[in-house]
């Protein structure tokens, strides 16, 4: 029996599922040979309530999403959170800096009463999660790697070191040397430092490393004449929900 896999999304842009659809022909057909996709609303019409592995994209931001997520947990043997919204809360949590009434009023005005909204949270704030495929969006290569090791019954290896290691390997000039703020020193690697390679800085979308050395980040900031506030402000974009912020 091939394992049955399902995709579900909550509050999100669905970019993670698009990245899965972005697998090359061979990768996709190879994967399809090993599994049965039984639920993938964005791509297929068939739906089933019987699946082994559930990939979940998006954060939880409505009461009504909580029972739906719990029902998936009861059914699935393995839950994999995919993308920043599901893994760490992501950009959706930016609205948590407002009261829910403020946010509703701002966007819907007099019609605010129609809408159900709660502070956004990652899925592990609601159910236990077995594995994480991080990033905004995640790398398709990491998706393939994690899925393959799950199919082999192995625990996927997830890097615990900071982005800086990969950034040096990518041959980038340090963003701090350019006088800008970067979250690379405290952010979990695995992205190959794609943002810095693209001419930007690390935004922290993969969440904190296992043991973030906050003191050394502060030292780095001091060395380059930057403030903690500047970093915290950047950190809010994806990591509002993290313990460091709360």
């Amino acid at each position: 029996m091939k394992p049955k896999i399902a995709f579900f999304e909550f509050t999100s842009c669905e970019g993670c599922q698009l990245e899965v659809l972005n697998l090359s022909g061979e990768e996709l057909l190879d994967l399809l040979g090993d599994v049965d996709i039984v639920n993938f609303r964005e791509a297929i019409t068939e739906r089933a309530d019987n699946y082994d592995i559930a990939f979940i994209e998006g954060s939880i931001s409505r009461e009504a999403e909580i029972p739906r997520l719990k029902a998936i947990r009861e059914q699935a043997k393995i839950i994999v959170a995919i993308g920043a919204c599901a893994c760490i809360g992501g950009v959706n949590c930016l609205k948590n800096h407002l009261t829910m009434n403020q946010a509703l009023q701002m966007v819907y005005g007099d019609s605010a009463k129609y809408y159900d909204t709660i502070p956004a949270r990652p899925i592990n704030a609601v159910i236990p999660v077995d594995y994480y495929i991080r990033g905004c969006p995640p790398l398709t290569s990491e998706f393939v790697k994690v899925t393959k090791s799950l199919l082999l019954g192995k625990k996927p290896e997830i890097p615990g070191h900071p982005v800086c290691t990969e950034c040096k390997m990518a041959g980038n000039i340090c963003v701090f040397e350019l006088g800008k703020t970067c979250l690379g020193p405290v952010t979990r690697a695995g992205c190959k430092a794609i943002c810095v390679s693209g001419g930007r800085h690390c935004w922290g979308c993969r969440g904190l490393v296992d043991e973030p050395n906050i003191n050394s980040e502060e030292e780095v900031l001091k060395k380059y004449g930057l403030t903690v506030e500047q970093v915290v402000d950047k950190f809010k974009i994806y990591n509002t929900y993290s313990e460091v912020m709360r």
Partner: protein
Amino acid sequence: MTQINVNVHYVTRIEGHGNLILNAKDGKIEELKWEVPESPRFFEAMLVGRHYDDVHHIASRICGICSIAHTTASIQATEAAFGIKPSEQTIMLRKLLYDAELLESHVLHTLFLAAPDFLGVDSVLPLATTHKDVVVMALRLKKLAYNLAEALAERKTHPLSCVVGGFAKLPDLNVLKALRKRLVDAYADLDVTVGLFKTLKIPDFVRETEYIALRDPKEYAFISGQIASSDAPAVAINDYLNVTNEFCVPHSTAKYAKNKRDAYMVGALARFNLNFKQLSPRAKKVAKELGISAPNHNPYMITVAQLVETYQALDESISLIDQILNKGLKEEPINVKPRAGKGVSAVEAPRGILFHDYTYDENGIITKANCIIPTNQNHNNIQKDLEALVPGILNKPENEIRLMMEMLVRAYDPCVSCSTHSLNVIFK
């Protein structure tokens, strides 16, 4: 007594969530509704207080599939607020990046999301066996579009290198040269798609509505121009609120829109109807082959108009690469001086016109944001289409009615996950 109950909870093969409900008894419709229960995302609230350099990065996350459209609209709105005029080189690179998104999105929609309905299957998966050449070809076209976006902005979903004032990193000319060759080869793939679509039976349903799209006297508009309408003279993008007239309805978290009539349409068919004359000769020729001429009032033909536009995107991207290779690229310093003020931008996402409207303080921090997405503008038109379509097909079996309704929604290529909204409430 005959009773028909169609209840599609979450229409599949669209981006985001939408439900279809039809209850009819003895040939009388009791309830017919297109519901949009998507989780509201509150982007306009999330953007308030953010520095301009973070704004397009966050705004990109409104939608995974139109992230280049949202990023471009966001950057252009900020530039409009600060009075920045992007260089000719920057505009060329932005258009090229845009073509990549249009190509990818249209291929995904026409071949992966819409085509299975016409071929009588539930998804693209069975087509991997029955129409393997088409699936392999679609994957090849998608990969090409991704690689083009990667060359310009490091990735397609949530692009990186395009920033306020220009590009943080320039593409490698050799990579562009290699991509040019693959773009030329892609015509053959698209021709196969056209061949397939010529054999498909598109439902014959006509409902004329108002069509709205960007129009630029210089070219078939994607990222510049004025707001054109089939029913009224074009207006400046700063006056977009007079066109969109958004309103809330109880059964939907998304807002609805209307202008001169009770509803209007945006997207590939609206662009095709309004700007047909500016299509490239090749795109016009394909339109003729596919039996579509402007104006066309059949919403099921949106998918066909998208296919015509993929040729437009190929033609434009090859021409842009030629110009870039000819002129070369030069490092341009990015100088951004924030100033207090308001800026509006409109671009044509693959599924229709979208607007970003920002107000900044003198430090370059957003004090107010408004974003209007294409699908919100189409919801109302989808509802009106359903009301015109369903009475004429009530005598058909329930599963056929359901399929016709689902195909109609899918034709619009809706992208409901965007779920951004508009309101003029000042944040204090």
